[in-house]
């Protein structure tokens, strides 16, 4: 596998093998657009499934019970808060989770004692979580505020670093793409949205941008001397950057996803639902789609946006004109596409490539 990935990397680097991602960007935009539309429809029609932290309510976790069944909890709830409809789930192997609507302080305490009695566990081993109805809104608002401020800051930093606001705009669009996609997955699957999920979402912000910036940095590097050469267009060099960072992108996402996958596994199969699982689930989806978007959305979009810059337009026109005349010193593949890639030094170019002195045979 290593050797394959390595050789594949070599071919990608040299331009021997190129995936025309930028050239086929309309296709990728269409795919992403459809996915986004589905995500938005899902969010609007089905909506997210907010956990009690957002709706308000009470949740108990009774750990290590001898008989993990719902019946004792149902009885206890029916006795103390008959108008409540408890949702009772077994977490992991022997933990019982009871979710209810908003309870007052006295009922909450009474139910705590009743649950302890019916499951025969000490009262202080029961965990509970009582959330007021307005808390979720304020958490959500804080997260949204954080998101907006963060986006503005990040836009500034990226625009300054790359000296191109269009790059920043493309990175932010890719980021929103990732968030929307992950939210869509949540709407589709009906996973509960908890504060831990929000943490996961916010991390996607950081990760998605991180990944995009790495690819963009390669684009920047490849196109740094754009104006002083007339072999390749901006789009071709950007595409080369994607291809050259492809191996890195794969390695990075595997390495980043491995720990997340291990949290997800432990979180869902050993612990049952909880902070770890909620964070990991959002991260897993978000990181995977983050890698996808920095390759298939951010860079092509960036090329599209920057294509409207005058300097780049002129340069592209010049390069294409030169090729038309046959004056460009580029290698052309059998299928007629121009081979864009790093040079292969160390091979003699032949005497014809040597500088010639005039007036000498």
């Amino acid at each position, binding site marked *: 596998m290593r050797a394959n990935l390595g050789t594949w990397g070599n071919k990608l680097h040299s331009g021997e093998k190129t995936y025309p991602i930028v050239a086929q960007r309309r296709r990728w935009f269409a795919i992403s657009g459809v996915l986004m539309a589905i995500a938005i429809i899902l969010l609007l029609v089905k909506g997210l499934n907010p956990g009690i932290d957002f709706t308000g309510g009470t949740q108990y976790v009774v*750990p290590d019970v001898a008989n993990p069944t719902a019946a004792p909890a149902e009885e206890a709830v029916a006795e103390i808060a008959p108008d409540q409809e408890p949702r009772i789930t077994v977490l992991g192997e022997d933990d019982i989770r009871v979710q209810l609507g908003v309870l007052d302080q006295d009922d909450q305490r009474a139910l705590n004692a009743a649950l302890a009695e019916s499951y025969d566990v000490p009262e202080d081993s029961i965990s509970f979580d009582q959330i007021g109805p307005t808390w979720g809104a304020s958490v959500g608002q804080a997260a949204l505020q954080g998101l907006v401020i963060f986006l503005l800051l990040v836009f500034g930093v990226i625009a300054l670093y790359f000296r191109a606001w269009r790059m920043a705009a493309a990175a932010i669009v890719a980021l929103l793409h990732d968030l929307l996609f992950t939210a869509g997955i949540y709407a589709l699957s009906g996973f509960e949205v908890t504060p831990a999920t929000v943490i996961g979402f*916010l991390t996607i912000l950081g990760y998605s941008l991180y990944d995009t910036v790495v690819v963009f940095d390669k684009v920047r590097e490849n196109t740094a001397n754009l104006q002083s*050469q007339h072999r390749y267009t901006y789009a071709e060099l950007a595409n080369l950057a994607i291809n050259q960072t492809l191996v890195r992108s794969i390695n990075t996402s595997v390495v980043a996803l491995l720990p997340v996958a*291990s949290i997800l596994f432990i979180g869902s199969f050993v612990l049952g639902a909880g902070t770890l699982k909620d964070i990991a689930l959002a991260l897993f989806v978000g990181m995977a789609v983050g890698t996808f978007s920095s390759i298939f959305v951010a860079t092509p979009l960036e090329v599209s946006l920057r294509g409207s810059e005058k300097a780049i337009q002129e340069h592209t026109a010049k390069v294409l004109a030169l090729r038309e005349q046959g004056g460009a010193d580029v290698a052309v593949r059998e299928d007629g596409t121009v081979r864009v890639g790093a040079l292969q030094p160390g091979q003699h170019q032949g005497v014809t490539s040597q500088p010639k002195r005039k007036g000498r045979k």
Partner: protein
Amino acid sequence: MSKVTKGARRSLIWLAAILVAIYGLLAVGVLTGNASWTPGLALDLAGGRQIILTPVLDEGATQEIDQSDLDQAVSVIRQRVDASGVAEAEITTQGNNIVVALPGTPDDATVDLVAQAAQLQFRPVLLVGDPSPTTTDDETVTESDETPVAEPSASASATPEPTPSASEVANLITDAEPEPSASPSAVLLDAAVPEASPSPSAETTDEAAAEPEDASSFAWLTEDVMADYAALDCLDVENYGGRTMGDPDAGYVACSSADFAKLAMGPVEVTGDDLETASSGPEMSQTGSFTGGYEVRLQFNSEGAAKFADVTTRLVGLEDPRNQFAIVLDGVVISHPVVQSRITNGEASISGNFTQEQAEQLANQLKFGALPLSLEVQSNQQISSTLGADQLEKGLIAGLIGLVLVALYSLVQYRALGFVTIASLIIAGATTFGVISLLSWGLGYRLSLAGIAGLIVAIGITADSFIVYFERIRDELREGRSLKSAVDHAWTRARRTILISDAVSLLAAVTLYILAVGGVRGFAFTLGLTTVIDVIVVMLFTHPVMVLLARTKFFGEGHKWSGLDPRQLGRDTMYKGRGRVRTGAAAPKDGLTLAERRAAERKAAEGGAVAADEVGEPTAAEVAAVNDAAEVSEADADDAPANDRKGDV
């Protein structure tokens, strides 16, 4: 030793110094008994109760809640919790919320106490006495001649909640009706010293049954109140927080946090609702010049102004200490100034030997008391310690599995180079652990489950820095550089990428930390911390190690298992500079130059048509050299890598 290796070694020494400093400091902490080797755990791991409260103003209130009010609410809650005997409670503000973290399983009374609203009351002072409880319960309240003034100050050091020093006593003057007080300081002093209190015993017994004619009447000192007064111990911390506010229409006893005196008071005459706001500032004399002291200004609303006018009218004519009124916040007297004149316009000021901080503190307390504030419980969460321990254990297992998987993957991908990744991750892990333990000692940082998730996620982001770097090195090798030169080139380029991407990551963490509440904060903190540590490790460990490794035979020659074998990276021939090349496994060590070998090849080609094709092929497949083609081949004389910066120009 070249300059480059020296630099690399210096970096490694720096890293070692940082690690030694972190763990040395921690060792000092552990030896002195304040710190522990492991980080402190937050409630969701250690078990305990977390209550999130949001202060809410009553409807129609004109004031706004600002940070000083939140701080004041926190200090009131802290006093209550401390007084209830719960150890290691943490009360912090996060945004507009107050987060109370109580370890263990606190009883219901403690929980109720936390959410109780604080009240501000103005009561007329009837008795001022010595802080310690009196065993004889009759008129002996005033037998405090032997009371050394030192006693209150001694108790000051014993009180965990430092309050303005005992010397702080106040007088009250109006801004509007300047009535020069003959000698304020004398009056003030009297007010503070318990021995000056009158002996009301006769009146008490006489008038106890009688209906008190006004709020300053000793008739309020019923037997119950006197019993309370006798029993109250103002040297005990318990009595400085969480006390009931008493019946507003009855006598009341409380301790003064200002001078640790014990006071008996009449019924409530003015409440916090009557107070508009309070502020502090430099004290002004009647002539308008600054006296150099500080004062606290009170602003009553119209209703309060009328009530306050009545009170001051009555009190100003009374003897000491009945000419004082006590300001009681949450069951503690925060000030008991002497009334020096009638105040009718609702604007009063308290002055005394305040320092600026004391004046500010008192003003903040008053302002807080003036808020029609209630604390709404937003979230009330109890985590049992068994569940917490379980989560911690599983979280650590998940982290370990993740780490092992990452290590295996990098070994598969990068072979021997994978060990550099693993070593870097271990160094990063050790640094993170040390810093978190230090922070948990120094700043009281507590590691939460969300924080652990942040750490696990950081494994990926940290490892990515190495991947970016290694892939750059491979790219440079593919372009035909020697390893030494490739490491150098790759570093200057990868460094930029690593720095900017980590900067974005850090920006995310800092923004989240500042704006978010609850668990998000713990997560953002570890994420930010590990990002910074990632940069340090890449700079001070990974790169220097690569520089040194590039000089070893195993890596420098591109051993098959080194992960940096140029042959596997598609470079059968490697340009070594000065016309020399090193070819792959089949490379003949004939010492011929490139041109000579080409000539030999051509000669051989003339012999057979098949061979001619082979020679022709590379030139056809030759990638179009970008204009800097010459530069790459000319620049990489492998013994001068440091000077070779052309690629970046």
